[in-house]
């Protein structure tokens, strides 16, 4: 692209004022969304994704039932107003299908599908705003939505994008940066530190790749903390509301009103 914005200036700041390894602000809202069994609104900088999860429930089509485990169905929709240039993508768009397939195959080994034979789990991903890191935001939001739906997972899946500007690695790129530097997305399962997803679409020497890849793996674990705090806050708020969470050991900060809309953290 022709943009001649300075990606990283001499002071070590990026175009939006961040440092090399600084992540954008993350906001997580886990409040109930309509009839969905679980949902998560995930905002990272200007990228915003809403994921709702239904299920496990009866499969709509008999042909989709699998006799010994649950079938996972992912539908992705990218809002026409989510980018600078207003563009309506059809549901058959290959990029959207690929995004859905990537989310499906990322979560297939993570969800304990064998507990729900012949059932179906529907994951609906609605992209509201995109400013880089779309895949990683969608994966993080899906993890959170699945957890709020009470669906058993082996672990969190925490994804983050990273790139390299000449020799400097950077984390969590914006669209502007994605257009200019080679970048990759890595999804980590924090308990074991294993990687479920790696995508790279731009040319990068394998020595550089190794460096950026390792940084992204570490960043995934940081993200895990954020996600876990949001889940724990939500869970303990609900537990408190049910009258279960009497302060024991852990300091309780019981406020007067029980508002479960957790905004920014």
């Amino acid at each position, binding site marked *: 692209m022709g943009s001649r914005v300075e990606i990283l200036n001499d002071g070590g700041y990026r175009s939006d004022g961040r440092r090399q390894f600084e992540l954008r602000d993350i906001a997580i809202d886990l409040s109930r969304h309509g009839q969905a069994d679980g949902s998560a609104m995930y905002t990272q900088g200007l990228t915003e994704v809403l994921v709702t999860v239904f299920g496990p429930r*009866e499969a709509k089509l008999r042909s989709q039932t699998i006799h010994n485990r649950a079938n996972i169905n992912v539908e992705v929709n990218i809002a026409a107003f989510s980018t600078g240039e207003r563009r309506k993508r059809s549901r058959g768009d290959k990029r959207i299908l690929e995004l859905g397939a990537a989310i499906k195959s990322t979560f297939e080994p993570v969800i304990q599908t064998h507990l729900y034979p012949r059932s179906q789990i529907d994951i609906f991903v609605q992209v509201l705003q995109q400013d880089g890191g779309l895949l990683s935001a969608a994966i993080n939001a899906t993890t959170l939505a699945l957890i709020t739906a009470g669906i058993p997972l082996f672990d969190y899946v925490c994804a983050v994008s990273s790139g390299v500007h000449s020799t400097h690695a950077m984390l969590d790129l914006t669209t502007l940066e994605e257009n200019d530097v080679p970048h990759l997305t890595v999804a980590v399962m*924090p308990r074991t530190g294993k990687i479920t997803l790696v995508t790279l679409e731009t040319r990068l020497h394998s020595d550089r790749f190794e460096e950026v890849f390792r940084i992204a793996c570490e960043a995934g674990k940081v993200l895990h903390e954020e996600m876990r705090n949001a889940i724990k806050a939500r*869970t303990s708020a609900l537990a408190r509301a049910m009258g279960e969470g009497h302060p024991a*050991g852990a300091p309780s900060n019981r406020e007067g009103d029980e508002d479960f809309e957790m905004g920014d953290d």
Partner: protein
Amino acid sequence: MEVDDTDGGETSLRSKITSPGESLTSSQAFMRGHGTYVEDDEVIASVAGTVERVNKLITVRPLQTRYNPEVGDLVVGRITEVAARRWKVDANSRQDAVLMLSSVNLPGGVQRRKLESDELQMRTFFEEGDLLVAEVQAFFADGAMSLHTRSLKYGKLRNGQLVTVPPILILRLKSHFYSLPCGVDLILGLNGYIWVSKHVKDNEQEGEEGFDAEAVYSNQNDEIDDATRAAVARVSNVIRVLAAHFVPLNDTVLVEAYEWVVEQEYTVKDLLLREDVADALVSAVATARPDL
């Protein structure tokens, strides 16, 4: 996140919140229950929720999840499909429940054998979209539950409306049928489906012969006066508000909440439209909560 056996004590374990991937304890000393899995000699949580321990069994109870049926549970469901000698019923579980033709009371005597003619007129008993109350009878090999309505208390639902809440808010109690003083009947299905309806007098319900097929499988609502309609709507909205604030439900809580709303002279609509009213209602019933 170690579950410490020595200083532990039931309370600290009970209130412990965990989330997927967190190691709870060693699998040598403890047994894994629901919401956990074992890897490398460790019991690890697979859901977010409260850790519970019964003797050596560690379970994690998710706070928001689909209904997990047990035999003997009372559920409210909706017919989704009429199939060969059976109905499929949506009961908020991981698969549709099955109601066998042989598990319902048929007209002309409770104990009679089912005939081929019954198979042909299954839709006259239940058809797609009908709501019913039933009991979980057994499970099939694939985990789907089988229901029965072989009791006068069970069967098709009329004269009211359905409210859905998270199943965890419905506690297992002696009875799930309540008649509130305001002339409203409640059926608290353990699957989180609640049926709120006009009160039916006991003798009417039972009928003369003990079983009146026409009444049981009727699709016609009785005459409902305005006051009862308002009461049904008020109870429904009270349930919605309490469920939105994750308050466990039983008859005492609901009676208290209902009376509070009447006392404060709020309209039925206020409950859903005004957040201050909703918050005030929740604090008002806090004292009447069921013991857990």
